[in-house]
Structures are given as structure tokens and as C-alpha cells.
């Protein structure tokens, strides 16, 4: 089975923005070209829950008018963007790929959506995801799975599979995803694109439909590191509507891209690159080691570093995230919006609506989280898990005393076949084993494509950095990206 992948087909964010700003291309022509490509291949990929073609054309026309009038429309002028369908878009259906949000049109925009729009970007659609971002393959969608553009019988990863696939298929040069346990980095790896999970609090969560509130972060998918940096410069920064939003700034990431890695200390996380954590494929490990060598060749020093408690990341995550989710998803009760299945009394209506509206994986996690918080078990499960987060953070802090950035796989394997892991939830959960620790610690990490596996499918390398360490993470990513281009 072949693929339709062509990340380059969408062009780059900065090229498009420059061309539109300079008047070399109209925003309308850019949008039309991208909508045409979506028309051609969306049937095979199913990246989108909704393509907002008419609205996109209207926005593009308005941008062209403003440009003609000499206005500055912002650094993302005319750039088509796809938004994961768990971010609120005013008046545009927002579903979380769940039946329970049937028909809901939010009366407000997420902060990131607002910021993209005011930078001149043009939303062309809402992308598919695992229902409420719970999953690692985008198969848990009420609207059917997304297919990996590189090989259509493979998963794109998840939960932001639609956003990753949209960029890999060349539908848009930029999309937004959300990452609670790896939901940006793992699909970025499987789809051969750049994916960034920023420091917790670096990008506002206002308008992101919560899964695990203390873990969720929004970040970009792009074809290049520079495009992600440019996007971060637009969507990042303090938001008074999010009380967990950072008041600190790490400055422009575009400005750090050419700093190189000379003298940088790079640590390979030994638990994830040496067999302590099972199930990481040999071809993946080979690419991580190759990345370390490439950085060394560029002037970095490379060593091994242990983050011992990271092996407890998975069990801790599968208590904390479901616990928070069980509470966050209580509000879907059939009263104020979305699906209602009637019953003789309010309690029966709540139960009927929730039972009909949520898919099996969401129910499983709600059940798990409810149990983890319930009387008699809260301390052992939720309580212990929150303490493990502290230990993981302390281990990372120790590692960052000796190293500037860390390297690890983004995903244990390349893209697997659709249906291969749906039977056993625990097997699916293992996909996140390398990405979860930095969600628990709140630290930034990103996946950069670095070659392919034995099956010819993309492999991403994960770069991790300390809190607010986005600059050093991006400068490393830029070097890795260059090394990859030189090698191929």
C-alpha cells in the first residue's frame, strides 16, 4: 500500500508568509492551492473532521484586501493552518472526535486560535484525533481513523494524528496539536514532521478542551524546525486567562536557530536507549545514536545519563491523566451543550447521554480515573503518582546539572498497522513510554525527523530540555535537521 506523503507540497510557513507579505502570491491563491491538495487526498488520509473551505477563502480575501491597503497582517500572513479539533473555534463545530459534543459550536476562540488569526494565519479545518485526545493512533475517533500519509494502512500516531497527517500529506504547512503524554511528539515521529511539546505554561491552554489539565500543552507541527520556532513566537507567551500560564519569557526562538551546538553537553537517557525500558525497536535506537553522533560531529559532547524514576512514568501517568480526565469530562452531562439522550429524571438523562456519547477508550479512562480518586484508593494511586512526578522532576534536574539537552526516542517504533494494537489497551499505552516523563515534569521536548526505519517509515528523535529551555532545544533541533538533510 503506497502513500500520499509530501510534506514539501505545502511549502514552508516562512516562504508562504514572505511571498504573501511581499505580494508575490495572494492569500487566496495559497488557500486555493492547499484546498485543492486536500480535495485530492483527504479521502485517503482523513486528516480532517471538518474542512472550513468557504471561511478560509473569505479570510484569505480579507487578508489580501488588508495587504492591498498597505496593512501589516502579521508574521504568518496567508499561512494555511489546521487546528486539532479539541481547540475551541468560535461558531465552528468543535468535537474532540466525540459524539458527546454533537452539534456544539463554541461561542469563543481558544487563545492560540486568536493569536494565529491575528498573525495572519488562515484556518482551513479542524483535524481528527483520538476521542478527547485519549490514544496513540487516532483510531479512537468517533469519525473513523486517520491514515498515515506515508503508508495508508499504518496509523499516524496519536492523539494528534490528524494534525500530524495534515502536515505530512502537504495539506497545510502548519498545524496545532496538543500533547498530554506524547500526543504531538509520537505522531510527529510516525509522520516524519517536526512536533513540539512546549514547557507547561509556555502556551496558553485557554480554549483547549482539557484532558489532563496539569499535563496538557499545545504545540505546532511543521515541516521545518524554523517554522515551529516562528509559530512558537506567535502562539507562546503569557495569557491572563490561563492561571497556569508562565509569566516568564524565553524570548524569540527564531533568533536562536543558528547558534549551533558547539560545546553543548548532550545526554542520552540510558533507560530509554539501553534496554531498561523494553520494547524500543532496534532501528529506532540506531537513529537516536546516529543523532547523538551527528551532534557530536557538530561540536557537542555526548554522554549517557540516567533518569531512573522515568521507568515509573507510565504507571504514574495512567493514574494522574485519567484522574484529571474523569473530573474534566464530568461536565458532558447533556444539560448545556452537545448530545442529550433523554431520561425520566436528570440522573438518568446524564447517564444515558454519557453512555451513548463517549467511546470505549474514554469510558475506560474515566473509570480508571474515578477509581484512582475514590475513597480508600486516592492516596495509593493518585497520591503516589503525584509523588512520582516529583521524583521524575528531581531526576531530570540532576541530569540537567550535567547536560544541556537530553536525547531519547520519540516513539518506540515506526508507524504500526491500523488495528494492530486496538485489542489490548495496555499495549497501546506503551507507545508513550518515552514521551510521558517530560509531561509529568512539565519540561519541553520535541520530535525532529531523523531518517527512516527498516520499513522505510519515518523515525523522529526526541530532544528534551529543562523548564523554559526552548532556546537550547531549538538550537539543537536546527543542527539535527541540517545533519539529516546533509545525510539524505
Amino acid at each position, binding site marked *: 500500500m503506497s502513500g500520499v506523503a509530501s510534506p514539501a507540497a505545502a511549502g514552508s510557513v516562512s516562504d508562504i508568509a514572505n511571498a504573501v507579505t511581499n505580494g508575490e502570491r495572494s492569500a487566496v491563491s495559497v488557500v486555493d492551492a492547499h484546498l485543492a491538495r486536500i480535495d485530492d487526498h483527504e479521502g485517503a488520509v482523513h486528516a480532517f473532521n471538518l474542512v472550513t473551505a468557504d471561511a478560509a477563502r473569505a479570510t484569505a480575501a480579507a487578508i489580501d484586501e488588508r495587504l492591498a491597503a498597505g496593512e501589516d497582517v502579521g508574521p504568518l500572513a496567508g499561512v494555511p493552518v489546521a487546528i486539532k479539533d479539541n481547540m*475551541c473555534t468560535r461558531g465552528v463545530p468543535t468535537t*474532540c472526535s466525540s459524539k458527546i459534543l454533537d452539534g456544539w459550536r463554541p461561542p469563543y476562540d481558544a487563545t492560540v486560535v486568536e493569536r494565529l488569526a491575528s498573525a495572519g494565519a488562515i484556518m482551513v479545518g479542524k483535524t481528527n484525533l483520538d476521542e478527547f485526545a485519549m490514544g496513540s493512533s487516532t483510531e479512537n475517533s468517533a469519525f473513523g481513523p486517520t491514515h498515515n500519509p506515508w503508508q495508508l494502512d499504518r496509523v499516524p500516531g496519536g492523539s494528534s494524528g490528524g494534525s500530524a497527517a495534515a502536515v505530512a500529506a502537504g495539506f497545510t504547512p502548519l498545524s496545532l496539536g496538543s500533547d498530554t503524554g506524547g500526543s504531538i511528539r509520537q505522531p510527529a515521529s510516525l509522520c516524519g514532521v517536526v512536533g513540539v511539546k512546549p514547557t507547561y505554561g509556555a502556551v496558553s491552554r*485557554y*480554549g483547549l478542551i482539557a484532558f489532563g489539565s496539569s499535563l496538557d500543552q499545545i504545540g505546532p507541527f511543521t515541516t521545518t524546525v524554523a517554522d515551529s520556532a516562528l509559530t512558537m513566537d506567535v502562539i507562546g507567551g503569557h495569557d*491572563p486567562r490561563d*492561571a*497556569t500560564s508562565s509569566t516568564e519569557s524565553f524570548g524569540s526562538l527564531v533568533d536562536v536557530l543558528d547558534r549551533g551546538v558547539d560545546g553543548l553537553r548532550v545526554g542520552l537517557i540510558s533507560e530509554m536507549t539501553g534496554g531498561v525500558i523494553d520494547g524500543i525497536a532496534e532501528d529506532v535506537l540506531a537513529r537516536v545514536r546516529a543523532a547523538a553522533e551527528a551532534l557530536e560531529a557538530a561540536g557537542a559532547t555526548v554522554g549517557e545519563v540516567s533518569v531512573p524514576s522515568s521507568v515509573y512514568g507510565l504507571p504514574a501517568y495512567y493514574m494522574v491523566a485519567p484522574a484529571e480526565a474523569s*473530573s474534566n469530562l464530568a461536565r*458532558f452531562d447533556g444539560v448545556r451543550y452537545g448530545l442529550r439522550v433523554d431520561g425520566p429524571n436528570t440522573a438518568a438523562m*446524564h447517564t444515558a447521554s454519557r453512555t451513548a456519547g463517549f467511546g470505549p477508550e474514554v469510558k475506560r479512562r474515566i473509570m480508571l480515573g474515578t477509581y484512582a480518586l475514590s475513597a480508600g484508593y486516592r492516596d495509593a494511586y493518585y497520591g503516589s503518582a503525584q509523588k512520582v512526578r516529583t521524583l521524575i522532576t528531581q531526576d531530570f534536574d540532576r541530569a540537567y546539572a550535567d547536560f544541556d539537552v537530553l536525547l531519547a526516542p520519540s516513539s518506540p517504533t515506526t508507524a504500526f498497522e491500523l488495528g494492530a494494537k486496538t485489542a489490548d489497551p495496555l499495549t497501546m499505552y506503551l507507545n508513550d513510554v518515552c514521551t510521558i516523563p517530560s509531561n509529568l515534569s512539565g519540561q519541553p521536548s520535541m520530535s525532529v525527523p531523523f531518517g527512516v526505519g527498516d520499513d522505510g517509515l519515518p523515525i523522529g528523535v526526541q530532544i528534551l530540555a529543562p523548564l523554559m529551555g526552548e532556546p537550547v532545544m531549538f538550537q539543537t533541533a536546527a543542527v539535527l535537521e541540517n545533519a539529516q538533510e546533509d545525510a539524505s
Partner: protein
Amino acid sequence: MTDTATDRREPTLPDGWELVCGLEVHVELSTATKLFCGCPNEFGSEPNTNVCPTCLGLPGSLPVMNADAVTSAMRLGRAINCTVKPSVMARKNYFYPDMPKDFQTSQYDQPTNENGWLDLPDGTRIEVERAHIEEDTGKSTHVGGDGRITSAEYSLIDYNRAGVPLLEIVSQPDIRTAEEAKAYVAELRGIVLALDVSDARMEEGSMRVDANVSVRPIGSDELRTRCEIKNINSLSSLGRAIVHEANRHVDLWTTGERPMQETRHWDEEAGRTRSGRSKEDAEDYRYFPEPDLTPLIPTAADLEAVDVSIPELPSAVRSRLADAAGVAPTEVSVLVDRGQAGFALDTIDAGADPTRVLVHLTNNLADGTGEMDPAAFAALVSMEVGGELSSTQTKEVLADMVVTGRTPDAVASEKGFEAMDTGELDGILDGLIADHPSEWERFCSGDDGDAKKMSGFFTGQIMKATRGQADGKVVAQLLNTRKP
């Protein structure tokens, strides 16, 4: 001040039984906006007009803490002698259609205020366990049937109140009589009003009281099964609900049954409590720290500013007025609750007789002192005490002064109230003695009861003759001097 079963016993309970009651009082803080969003915190708006993504719990919305609500909470906490501590907001998870997120953002194991107390006017101290910040729910109206929740056909929900800041003040089970419960709530209300953190209107629901009621044999210190009584809408209902519930418990215990731990609703019309729905699984609230909000850690400067901002509280005002008037603090609590203590003190300072000042304020000025100023009031009281005006005339002048703000001289002379001179009264009495010799005889030599009766007779006749302008005290004096 003492805490013995003999002088703090609920009088409606059978001998040998003691009431054990704790109160949970919810006070709506009168901030400009809600606890977590910028919607107006307003009573009486059109339904669902003060709502936004956050207070409707729309997917993707986030809360941000209202700084003034926290300040109000700390001030109220300090005013009831609590320790203000670092706190963490928590989620209390349960399904309830009036609660948009299906969890209430509240405080759990780390509340803002802990371990305070409140002294009742009679000196009884009620300990306060905690006073924590939380959000209010929306409001349901039950439609169809007879309008009661049990027979409604459907419910309509208004979320204007959802997210309004509340302070929940939880007392220890230190209350021993229904009167103490009422006094506690009145005292708390006085403090809230003095601090100006809420309008504390029970009838509008900006102050709500739930009572945890149990009973035990006197002398025991056990805590028996308690019931939580909700839907109490006034101080008098609070007293009746507690009395009813406590007696229900005693009946159950004495007939070999036992109360069930449950929530019960006060039915004002029927004068009884009714069992709420039994919630088999519902009591597991699965509390955990609210990840969308940060801990609140007051600085030393915050705490100092809070303490400095606390005005003189009702207990202090009560002592000051009681001292000035030479009475017990309990006797002035009504005036303090009404906010008339300052006026009383100013009047007493202006030289008026404290007893008459308290009597007039308590009995004749319950609706307020209107346009009258303390100096004029003091002058009026002096005229009354000096016999220039009878008590009936005084009342009449007072009523005028409250409306017009004039001086008592001006009002009295306009009304033609002149002090009756004793000579004139003497003449009237001479005439009466001549007309009623046998009555006069009984007044002079009858037994105590008879003499008293006849004293009343002659006083009445004199009042009739003077059309009520004679001063009762002067008449009594006159009768006594004429008695052989």
C-alpha cells in the same frame, strides 16, 4: 460563659437530653465579579445573562481567581479569630445539573481559614473549625406538579449565580440550644455586615444556613448520628427546624430506633423536616487539588493589611454601649444588630439618660432614627426625664422628629405641649376627691391590691381631664403626697 448542661439546655427537649448542633453558614461575598470569571456578581438579573465560558463550564474554559474574593475571605476569617493559612483550591466531584462543571471548586484539606471562634452576646464561645472559599451553584426552578421538587415535570436552570464567591463557615458542634444557634447566626451576620463583605440576606439567599443536628444523654460526650438540615430561610425557621429535628431524634432514640445519617429538608409550612433523596454512592467526592489554579500563599504584608482593615466588630461595640449604659451586653445586642449603637452612644455622650435612650431606640425606633440627630434626641430625652413632656407626648414628638429632623422644643411648642404645673393638677385632683369620696377612701386605707386599683382609677381620671397631657410619673408622685 459557663458550659454546663444546666444553664445551656435546650428547653424543648425532654429531661436528660442534650442538643448537639453545628452550623454551616454560606455567605455570598459581594465582589463586583464572580470567583473565577469577570461576569457581574449580581442578584436579580435576567436569567443566564451574567454567564461566560468559564462560569458555564464550557469545554476549554479556565478559572482565574478573583483577588478581592480572597481578601474578603481572609478578612472574615480574621474577624472570627481564624488562623489564615496557605491554601489550595480543590475539586469536589459530584453530578448536579445546577453545577456547570459537575464539580465544585472549593477548598478541602488546606482551607484559607482554620480554628477560629465567635463569642455570643451572653459570652458563650462557639468554636469555628474552618471558613473556606468556594463557588456557588446556579439555580433551578421546578416546573409543574405542585411546584415541589418531588413532583416537578421538569426544571429550568439559570446560571447567573453559578460561580459567585462563597465563604463557608463551619462551626464545631458547640451549639446547645436553638436560641444559641440563632444568636450565632445573628452574630456572624453582624460581623459580615461590619466588614461589608456581603449583604448577608437570608431571604435572598446571600446567607444560607445548614444545621447539623444530633442529641445525646446529658453528661455524655459522645457524638451520635447527625442529620444535616437544609432549606432554612430565616432565623426563626432555623430555631424551629433545630427544635423539631432534635425532638425527632430523641423520639427515635427513646423508642429503640436510631436516626439515619442523611440530609433532610426543612418544610416551613408543615413545620417538620423531610428526608432528602438517599444517595447511596454519591458521598464519594473524590477531592483533588484544582490543577487549573495555583496555591494561595498570603504574605506577611497581606496578613497585616487584612488585620488593619478590620473595623470595630459587634462584640466590641456591644461592650462599649453596655458600659456606657450600665447594662449587660445582651440588653444592647438588638441595637448593635440594627446598627444603632453609634447613635445610642452619641446620644448618651450628649448627656441623655442611658436607660430612656435604650428604651426609645429599642421600642420606638426599630425602623430607624430617620432625620433626627443624636443631639436633638438627647434634648428630647432630657425634656421627658425633667417632666416637661409626658411619655405619650414624648413619643409623639419623637415620631415627628424622625420625619422632619426638627428640635424637640420646636415640635413640642407647635403641638402645644406645655408642662402641666402641679398646682393645676392639684385642683383637678381636689375636684375628683369631692366627686368620688368612697374611691378616695379605698385609695387611702384599702389593702395593697385595692389601693393600687384606685391609684389606677384616679390616674386615669386625671389623664382624661388633661387629655393625656399630664405626666404619669408626676401624677403618681402627686397621689402619694396627698395620701394621708
